């Protein structure tokens, strides 16, 4: 029997997240014959808008609308999905702050298998599904097999599955609000979204970024990166560990939980290249990576790479460039 796959459509006030078009590709990889249904939650206006857009890609769209769902609070949506989805269904979610919030608990409530952050599928067969994922900060790949007897909840990595841009599906939107409702009383209330603070340098506007990661080793070494940036006329950005250590302000962090940058040249210095970091680099810049670890994932995406210690190479670069400029 073909699988029944549901794609959770993430949206912001009715505007679809990129994952909305990627999950249909993921679903087809699981089972080319699957019935794929988009599920949209929101308040009346945003659910309508998102459902209408999803219907361009999905032949079937289930809409759940309530004024309490204006903001996607996983604690409200989880019990509603648990009730709404048919037995044995596979639900796909994006691997993001919402999917991570919703998914694991939903799998428990539905007695379903949970696969986190899938990057590929080998296809469902005999009630089992093999998925590919990464472990150890992207250094290692693993194949996992999920038992589908109770269905599955799967988060899919953003960008790992091609967006289905075909459109024209002419899908039918079905209002499932009554089946999923009523909205339960939640013990967690959404209050507000606090926007990121703007720092003294706007790295989203930089043409050239000297971006540093763990390889910088200590706060005192930051100067070496700033010297290089000054010499070549770049700005300094960084990966998450540098901000976690409070060495640089959050506004300099590149990644899905930081800033999205679109430079012409990106120098990834001592950055391993976790997908959350790469997710913040858009516009296909020329990328140079320097890292001590020859197996660092960053070398898979960089144009040019050097295996080496940034603390040795950066000062030499600065010196040579300064010399050259006279």
């Amino acid at each position: 029997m073909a699988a029944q796959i549901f794609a959770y459509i993430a949206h912001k006030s009715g505007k679809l997240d990129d994952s909305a078009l990627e999950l249909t590709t993921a679903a087809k990889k699981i089972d080319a014959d699957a019935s794929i249904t988009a599920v949209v939650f929101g308040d009346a206006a945003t659910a309508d808008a998102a459902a209408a857009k999803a219907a361009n890609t999905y032949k079937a769209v289930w809409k759940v609308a309530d004024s309490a769902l204006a903001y996607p609070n996983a604690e409200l949506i989880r019990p509603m999905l648990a009730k709404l989805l048919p037995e044995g269904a596979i639900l796909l979610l994006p691997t993001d702050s919402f999917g991570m919030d919703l998914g694991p608990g939903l799998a428990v409530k539905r007695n379903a298998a949970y696969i986190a952050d899938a990057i590929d599928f080998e296809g469902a067969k005999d009630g089992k599904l093999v998925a590919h994922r990464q472990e150890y900060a992207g250094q290692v790949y693993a194949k996992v097999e999920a038992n589908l007897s109770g269905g599955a909840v799967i988060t899919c990595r953003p960008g790992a599955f091609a967006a289905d841009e075909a459109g024209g599906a002419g899908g039918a939107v079905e209002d499932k609000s009554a089946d999923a409702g009523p909205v339960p009383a939640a013990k967690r209330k959404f209050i507000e979204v606090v926007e990121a603070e703007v720092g003294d340098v706007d790295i989203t506007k930089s043409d050239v970024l000297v971006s540093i990661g763990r390889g910088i080793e200590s706060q005192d070494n930051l100067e070496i990166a700033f010297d290089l940036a000054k010499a070549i006329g770049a700005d300094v950005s960084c990966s998450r560990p540098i901000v976690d250590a409070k060495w640089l302000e959050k506004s300099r962090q590149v990644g899905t939980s930081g800033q999205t940058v679109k430079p012409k040249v990106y120098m990834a210095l001592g950055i391993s290249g976790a997908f959350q970091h790469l997710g913040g680099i858009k516009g296909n810049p020329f990328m140079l990576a320097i890292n001590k670890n020859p197996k660092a994932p960053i070398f898979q995406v960089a144009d040019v790479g050097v295996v080496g210690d940034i603390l040795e190479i950066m000062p030499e670069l600065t010196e040579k460039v300064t010399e050259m400029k006279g």
Partner: protein
Amino acid sequence: MEILVCVKRVPDTAENEIAVKADGTDIVRDDVVYSVNEWDNYAVEEAIQIRDNVGGTVTVVSVGDAESEEIIRREMAMGADTGVLLSDSAFEGSDGLGVATILKSFVDKGKYDLILTGALADDGAGQVGGMLAALLDLPYASVVNKIEVKGDKLLVGREIEGGNQEMNEISLPCVLSIQTGINEPRYVGIRGIRKVASLEIPCDGKDACGLDAGIIGAAGAKVKRLTYFVPELGEGAEMIEGSTEEQVEKVIEILKAKGGIK
């Protein structure tokens, strides 16, 4: 406030190059440096700070092998009040639900207002906190990067996309998964480690936890790791070889050509 923090001993990815064994059954574990999972360490620091502000105790629990004792000790050297190891050969091969089920059996024996886990660990799944919350029927918030105690509720910030923070009010008891950067974990010196070196860490097995093999262990797992593998990747970066001096010259040449030097 009675706080429980779930911690895991993991290969330290900042210190190790992780490689796959030729037969794909495991990663190469010789010479691998282990440490407490980075996210869990932030969770323990947060728990200690909350306890120091409002009173109570911090208990650290780990599901793992006998060597996990060392990270429990380390977190006690940081300031956790008690530590317990949950270890049994029957636990091996447990999936996320199995681990959450083992932890639940421990939670059920105590009375905790707040349960913390790391948002992620070495397997990159980020699943145990959310599963534990669901098993316990408690409210949950993931990727938490701010906690403020407000009577019988907490004000929690979640790290969402774009560097933004989602503020929520959550009632106690609850389960939170903690994101790195929420605080600055204190340094644990050799003297601190020495102080706890001789502490007895209680260890509960399957029977003490009151568990049967239905969900835990490899047999109970709904999700199994079949193999590690090395994917066929693209060519990747063009690598610049040579002496440091040669590499530097080549890098400058390339940067100039690509407009990276202004």
